[in-house]
């Protein structure tokens, strides 16, 4: 039944080819990113590209070993592997070395290894194992809880290492759980929450609340075809908004008014006995009230809970820099008005000073990095500046140009042509893995496949999204491309276990 002689039997060559292509692209771009006249041999082991070549060699060996193993090995040892990796995550917290503020490295001599990279495939194995257990149903609350624990444990341990980026990766499992039966509303809810969060920060809570209330009343009214109720509610709400804008009431007052309106609305509806025996309405109203509270809380969370560097990450994305510049200019005009009291002038000066400070903070930190990253990629143009001709990355304008910001080098030297090919390669890889996962006979392999696709996808979205200004600055590597042994090996193991599982799919009994 089995073809022992050939470890490449039934492997999916399309996936392997994309993998090899990405690894090769990574290597030559690491060479370009750190290239200097002094060290120009691409095999120079003292340089990053030389080292990366070594890592690639190891990774290929690892891939071969995985292909030589039985797929059964991983299903059998899923929990032990998970246990060992979780243990090492705890251990690294106690005896690990600190690099860039994160206690996530084991250091043995000059050799460093990051167990959090390997926690990914461990968590994937354990989750696959758990979800493939017979008699499991995603609808059960117990199943959800258990799945959350398997995913949450490494996430929490990594968070304790102060490595926020790697922690966030575990959010990627939402795709897997969704595929396995988690309510789609949760996925939708997550996406909506992100959209509302961003909109609130851009337009301010008041406007979003007002818009949401109007929208809700209209939709609700129209759905119920009750024009009278709708109009009455709109009139009341309109009055409240009118009062707010006319008397410049403080934000707190408007919250009370909105709250009062909502209570009035609900109370009125009850009194009118319009809702007799229709429980869903209460749920709808309750959800709406919570939504409003969420919007209001964003402002609070953003200003009070988030730390300074986290705030800048977000504000950079929201074009806060331009906003600040505009505000400063506005204040300057006011300050230079001739008929202004000395007191007021001083006040304005202080305001300008504060805004300037924020602007500087913004520019020096992630704002500057994002801008340089965009300049590097944008200056590549359609066909790029050519191999080794990039200036922005080579002259250190872009930070971390061989690790987290490696995409900038690709964008600068290979232009849109290069970046587009990369988009195609990655998207093709993700879709191919989903395709392969769907053809699996075992739930274990399918869950595993989805997990691989989701994790790779999450890294891809955050890493590239960050460099092109569509995602906050979170330092996680670009799979197969960024410099670094740990991440390359971890992704390779992750992917090749799936390739192995896939190659054995026909052997698995249904």
């Amino acid at each position, binding site marked *: 039944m089995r073809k022992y002689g050939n470890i490449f039997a039934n492997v999916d060559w399309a996936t392997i080819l994309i993998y090899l292509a990405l690894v090769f692209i990574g290597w030559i771009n690491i060479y370009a990113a750190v290239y200097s006249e002094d060290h120009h041999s691409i095999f120079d082991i003292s340089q990053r590209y030389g080292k990366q070549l070594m890592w690639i060699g190891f990774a290929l060996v690892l891939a071969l070993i995985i292909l030589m193993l039985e797929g059964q090995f991983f299903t059998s040892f899923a929990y032990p592997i998970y246990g060992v990796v979780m243990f090492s995550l705890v251990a690294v917290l106690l005896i690990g070395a600190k690099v860039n503020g994160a206690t996530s490295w084991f250091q043995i001599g000059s050799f460093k290894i990051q167990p959090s990279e390997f926690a990914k495939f461990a968590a994937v194995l354990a989750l696959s194992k758990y979800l493939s257990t017979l008699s499991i149903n995603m609808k059960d609350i117990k199943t959800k809880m258990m799945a959350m624990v398997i995913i949450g444990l490494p996430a929490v341990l990594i968070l304790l290492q102060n490595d926020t980026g790697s922690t966030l990766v575990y959010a990627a499992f939402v*795709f897997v759980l969704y595929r396995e039966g988690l309510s789609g509303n949760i996925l939708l809810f997550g996406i909506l929450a992100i959209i509302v969060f961003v909109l609130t920060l851009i337009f301010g809570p008041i406007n979003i609340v007002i818009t949401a209330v109007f929208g809700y009343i209209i939709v609700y009214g129209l759905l119920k075809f009750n024009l009278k109720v709708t109009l009455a509610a709109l009139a009341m709400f309109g009055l409240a908004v009118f009062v707010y804008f006319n008397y410049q009431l403080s934000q707190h007052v408007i919250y009370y008014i909105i709250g009062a309106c909502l209570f009035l609305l609900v109370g009125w509806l009850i009194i009118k006995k319009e809702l007799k025996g229709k429980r869903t309405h209460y749920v709808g109203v309750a959800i709406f009230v919570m939504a409003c509270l969420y919007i209001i809380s964003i402002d609070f969370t953003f200003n009070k809970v988030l730390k300074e560097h986290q705030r800048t990450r977000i504000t950079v994305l929201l074009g806060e820099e331009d906003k600040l510049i505009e505000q400063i200019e506005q204040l300057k005009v006011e300050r230079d008005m001739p008929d202004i009291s000395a007191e007021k002038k001083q006040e304005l000066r202080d305001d300008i000073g504060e805004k300037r400070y924020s602007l500087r903070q913004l*520019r020096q930190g992630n704002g500057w990095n994002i801008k340089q990253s965009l*300049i590097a990629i944008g200056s590549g143009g359609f066909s790029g500046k050519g191999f080794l001709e990039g200036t*922005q990355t080579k002259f250190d304008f872009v930070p971390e140009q061989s690790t987290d910001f490696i995409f900038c080098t690709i964008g600068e030297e290979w232009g*849109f042509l290069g970046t587009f090919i990369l*988009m195609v390669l990655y*998207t093709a890889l993700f879709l191919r893995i989903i395709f392969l996962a*769907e053809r699996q006979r075992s739930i274990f392999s399918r869950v595993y496949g989805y997990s691989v696709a989701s994790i790779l996808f999450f890294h891809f979205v955050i890493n590239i999204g960050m460099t092109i200004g569509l995602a906050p600055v979170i330092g996680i590597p670009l799979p197969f491309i960024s410099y670094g042994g740990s991440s390359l090996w971890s992704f390779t193991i992750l992917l090749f276990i799936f390739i192995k599982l896939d190659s054995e799919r026909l052997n698995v009994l249904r």
Partner: protein
Amino acid sequence: MNNLSNRKFIVGLIFLVIGVIFSIRLFTIQVVNDDYKNDSDQNVLREIVQYPARGLVYDREGELLVYNEAAYDLMVIPKQVDTLDTLAFCKLLEIEKVEFVTKFNKAKAYSTYKPSTLVKEISSISYASIQEQLYKYPGFYVQTRTLRRYPRNSAAHILGYIGEVNQSTIEKKPYYKSGDYIGKSGLEYSYEELLRGQRGVKRVLVDVHNREKGSYKDGTNDTMAVRGTTINTTLDIVLQEYGERLMANKKGSIVAIEPQTGEILALVSAPNYNPNMLVGRAVRKNYPILSTDSLNPLFNRALMAQYPPGSIFKTVQALIGLEDGVISENSGFPCIKSLVNCHNHPSAQNVAQSVKMSCNPYYYSVFKRILQQRRAKSIFKDSEIGLGIWNKQVLKFGFGQRLPTDLPAIKRGTVPGIDFYNRWYGEGRWAFSTIYSLSIGQGEVEVIPLQMANLSAIIANKGYYYVPHLIKNVENSDTIPSIFMKKNSVGIKKKHFDPIVEGMFGVVYEPGGTARRARINDSIVVCGKTGTAQNPHGADHSVFIAFAPKDNPKIAIAVYVENAGFGGAWAAPIASLMMEQYLIDSIGTNNLAKEKRVLEANLMNVEFKE
């Protein structure tokens, strides 16, 4: 289970949509938007300005007067500064930490990404040690500039000084950029465009730490700096320095001109200052000291001090009278002290004697004849017409107008005309009797020392002058400005100068002459005219104009010593020593006592009348 299987499409769609969104975004920033390409160039392209060496300045004998010395400014780009060991860095720079922090904050306030000067003019020795360590301090670099140096420590008023351009100049003259140096006064100002040279620009690629990484496009677009043009001046620096020594502890000025060419040989204004005081970093300390000094050393008296000319002006009156035909060279007028005060002397029998004896009533009469020629019935109208004609004649001598010399900030002096007195007294309300003090160079007439020297040159030339100037020739050019090549006639026949020259000879050599102290030796004949300008504020000013030798004069000179009393006392010996120095290159033993007397004299605070 089937409906869950459909979820693969949802997940696949999300993956695909993100891929498409990213591709669109990449297309937008890479292909559609051009801003990033410019930003990229701005990031890595640094224009390095190559400052040209400023032109050198020499005197007429080829002595170096101004040269350049390398200076190093420490620049900072605050944004690129890493965490800094301030204490060690201050030690390296040899400055106080407080000073460093203040300056650094100032630079930061100006701009975080544009360079500012942190420490100006580091010495070459400090520069060497700083340069060695500088790689440890990203964001700092050294810019080479040049400073002007004046090896002779003299002629400050002539050479002028340079300084950083101010904002209004930058707006008016687009060549200049902030931080450039520009001539602020003297020759540095007048010949700025020759001396400054041409800035060059080198484009280099730099990394984020502003370290040079190579030239841009192999330097094909770079321009080289062109060094400033060397200029040779007409100045005789030995004579200039001698003049400055003679004028030490005195207020006033000396102007010496070569009559045949208008070349200025010396132009002394006392008190003066060492030109090296206004160089580079020292300016900030020294300028306030000089500008608030009550003796006003920055004030160039030779061009800016307007004095009544006193008796030397009688030569002009005589020449106009002769040219007008209202007197002849043999006209005599009695010394009637009731007309205007005079000293005791026999009445002048001719023009030469009147010059020698400097008789005031004589010139009262001459001026009266010049003004009142019965051109109108009304005595007022007659004077008015006469003054109008006289005024035009005097202007031709270069008085009452800005001599277009090659030094800035020159005054015009005053030659009162009809309008002047109409404004003063009202039309038809003045006549000769109102304004007769003009006849002896007092009253409303005012001249600057340069104009006095020019008068001396006119008499030496017997009727013409070249605009006094300091430019002798310019490197790589055969010409000097045409205005200095033009012979200006004063409109008086040559023969009318003979009695004046005779009179000026008499002043020095004949009994009754007022300036025996102006004699040099037996072989060089000096002609001169003393003057004593009344000073309502204190002791009279001592004036002397002269030229020598009498035949074919080589030097014409004017000396004006404030509060020094009678012209023959101080101005005449100073002029004599200057001429001797110039003509013989040394002072004869017979004149050493005279020299000693002058050198030792302190006339700063004298309040006597001779």
